[in-house]
């Protein structure tokens, strides 16, 4: 390649841009954007179809070709779900389980993560590795023994039966440690010179500087426990204790192919998340990024 070549190239490029090129580029970009918009809409079809079905008179649910725009809008399915099923109770149960797990997890993970990140003591790294390795233990291994353990503790069919094992997951310690390690040491040194104890450093320096990490972890834990299925199915069997996912399973068990009711239930169950998401969209997505590639 000669030295002239790049210059020629950039010259021809800029000339092309000044003529038809600019417009062609715009057109291409617009087309790409439009294509993506269509794809995004297509991606929403399952959800749109859920809403459509949930508010359609039953005969119009079971017609071919599928009827996208119903002749009338009906609340009968939603009403039937709310009348026959303790739907609000399920929402409340889910909120208690998710809120409790998130809170407990934060409360016990913060000091542990702080100790692993900022204090020096014998056996620290070994213990941390042991905790981290236990991330691999799936619910399925522990389901049977946890069932007997909870039974002998008298905790079966209580919220604690679900909250405690979720809070025991090491992910919080892991994520918070990553965050705490990166808080600059100068702040801590200054506080130490002023006579701050380790607890003081944690409360005065680490906590105020870690709000984004708490939000991210909190969101992650909340979503995880809000959606937890396997263990809740086993530990919460009393009808008044069911969480949303398990309640929906009961709903499906009772109605089989009455899709109007089923999709009304699914729609109602997705409402809280939808609302939170619409309000905090950027925060939720960014929080997910912070928790990195980790999932349950």
């Amino acid at each position: 390649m000669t030295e002239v070549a790049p210059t020629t190239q950039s010259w021809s490029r800029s000339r092309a841009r000044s003529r038809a090129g600019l417009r062609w580029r715009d057109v291409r970009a617009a087309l790409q954007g439009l294509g993506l918009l269509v794809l995004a809409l297509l991606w929403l079809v399952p959800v749109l179809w859920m809403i459509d079905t949930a508010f359609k008179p039953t005969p119009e649910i079971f017609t071919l070709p599928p009827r996208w725009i119903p002749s009338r809008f009906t609340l009968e399915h939603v009403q039937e779900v709310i009348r026959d099923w303790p739907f609000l109770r399920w929402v409340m149960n889910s909120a208690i389980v998710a809120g409790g797990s998130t809170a407990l997890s934060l409360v016990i993970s913060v000091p542990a993560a702080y100790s692993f990140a900022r204090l020096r003591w014998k056996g620290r790294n070994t213990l941390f590795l042991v905790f981290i390795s236990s991330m691999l233990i799936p619910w399925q291994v522990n389901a049977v023994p946890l069932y007997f353990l909870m039974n002998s503790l008298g905790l079966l069919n209580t919220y604690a039966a679900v909250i405690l094992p979720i809070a025991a997951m090491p992910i919080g310690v892991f994520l918070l440690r990553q965050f705490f390690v990166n808080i600059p040491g100068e702040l801590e040194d200054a506080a130490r010179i002023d006579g701050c104890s380790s607890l003081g450093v944690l409360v005065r320096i680490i906590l105020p500087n870690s709000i984004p990490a708490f939000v991210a972890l909190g969101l992650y834990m909340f979503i995880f426990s809000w959606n937890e299925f396997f263990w809740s199915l086993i530990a919460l069997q009393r009808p008044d204790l069911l969480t949303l996912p398990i309640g929906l399973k009961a709903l499906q068990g009772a109605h089989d192919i009455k899709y109007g009711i089923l999709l009304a239930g699914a729609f109602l169950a997705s409402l809280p998340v939808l609302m939170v998401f619409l309000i905090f969209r950027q925060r939720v997505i960014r929080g997910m990024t912070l928790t990195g590639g980790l999932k349950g």
Partner: protein
Amino acid sequence: MRPHLPKPIARLLRNRHTEGLLFVLPYAVIWALFLLWPMIYGFYISLFKWQPLLGSEFIGLKNYTNLLHDARFWNALKNTFWFAFLSMPLIIGIGLLFALFIRGMGKRRGAGFVEASFFWPYLLNVSIISIIWKWLFDPDFGLILYYLRRLGLEPPVFLNDPRWAIPAIAIATGWWLAGYRMVVFRAAIEDIPDTIFELAELDGANPLVRFFRILLPLLKPALLFALVLTAISSFRVLGQVLMMTDGGPGRASEVLALYLYRAGWQYLEMGRAAALGFVLFLIILVVTLLGFRFLGFESELGGR
């Protein structure tokens, strides 16, 4: 300023080794009680013919050796691997593709909407997505079969067809989880300097070559990490299967976790269920170790 504490505790805290341990203690207690102990106890149970109503009898490793001759176990194992094999490329492939699309859109109008719409299924719980997709796959009135027929195809009845039940569940799972992967990949892509993209463009290589020669190697750590984590969650699959097919038709979609659930809570054979749990754990352990061998331990501790 030093918070006021009772004297003996203050003395303990002055020793930095005990102090460090004390901070860990609350978590360590919960962890030991509800994570470590169940695992040990679970292994103990797996050595028994453990039936809550009939009494228990020590049988050593018989629960494990029995599995070797259990056709139902092998079927569940095959189904689990088949599901993982199908769902992983869907989740990761679509996630990566969407991440690239959205990077291409930059700050243009609509980018936020596109990202939100790709991501949001992830927030729905497993029962919701199962109900939605069971309805979409409905053999009589489902949208998917209707439109495939309109296209002149003769589609299978998906969830009711033994060969298509698992692929159908994998498709629904792909739709559900790809958005989460997308968000994680986006973060990895944003870490790549823009100049690399510009250089690649100036180089004039076609997009496919650019993708495979430049982007893919740069994203390799993030991809491998995603692969391991997706594999782990795929091997644990239960909710979708339970809700969409209940393991059917017949046992065509019965996966390991479902077999475990039934062994334990339908047939009340807790010993066998505990053994199944350990087999599942072993599989996940091997997959993870293999994955991290390629990754190096550092990336495991370094998050994404």
